[in-house]
């Protein structure tokens, strides 16, 4: 069974090139949420909420786009790395892909369950932020680890 909807192999390279700066900026954001002036922009919001005011729908609001840009680029880079075809994508690789996706999903939710039980307060917000990316990261690690092991077992 060959999987459809995978990107061509060279998207993996594009993904890696995007990943390096975006993960660095992402980690910087985790530490001290920079808000560079030139990224202060006016945006259209379907929903906007803030403390002490009623939620507004279809509104214009001001924001700093640093986290939006970094988050989106990081997600795109992870999707490219995760879902680009291998140089030789065949049915066996597809099975490894599927298995890895199931395992990564379970693993991600086990971690999430534990953090729901054991993490409280504002820290949980950051857990949710990391959780936006973690499932793809777990998948990439598991999938590539198995592919590496299979390649090694052939070489011997």
């Amino acid at each position: 069974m060959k999987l459809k909807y995978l990107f061509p192999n060279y998207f993996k390279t594009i993904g890696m090139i995007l990943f390096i700066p975006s993960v660095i900026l992402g980690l910087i954001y985790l530490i001290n949420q920079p808000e560079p002036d030139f990224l202060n922009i006016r945006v259209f919001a379907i929903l906007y909420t803030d403390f002490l005011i009623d939620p507004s729908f279809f509104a214009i609001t001001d924001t700093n786009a640093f986290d939006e840009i970094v988050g989106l680029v990081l997600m795109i880079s992870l999707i490219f790395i995760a879902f680009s075809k291998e140089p030789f994508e065949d049915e066996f690789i597809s099975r490894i892909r599927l298995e890895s996706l199931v395992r990564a999903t379970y693993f991600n939710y086990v971690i999430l369950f534990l953090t729901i039980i054991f993490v409280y307060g504002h820290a949980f917000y950051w857990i949710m932020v990391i959780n936006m990316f973690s499932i793809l990261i777990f998948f990439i690690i598991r999938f590539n680890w198995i592919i590496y092991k299979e390649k090694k077992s052939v070489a011997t």
Partner: protein
Amino acid sequence: MKNRIKIERAILNITQEELAEKTNVSRQSINAVESGKYVPSTILALKIAQVFGKNVNEVFELDENDWK
């Protein structure tokens, strides 16, 4: 599922790599099928059998575990 790929390869004197090329899959896949780690699709099983000039059930055989 048991298979006779290793024996059939020896008869034809071809490597895993060559069998992979002929059936248009990666060498890892042939290795995984041959070692019984991966059950191939019907299409791949038929291709492998055809390379050996055999029927598919001369190359692949059910074992008891397949009925569990």
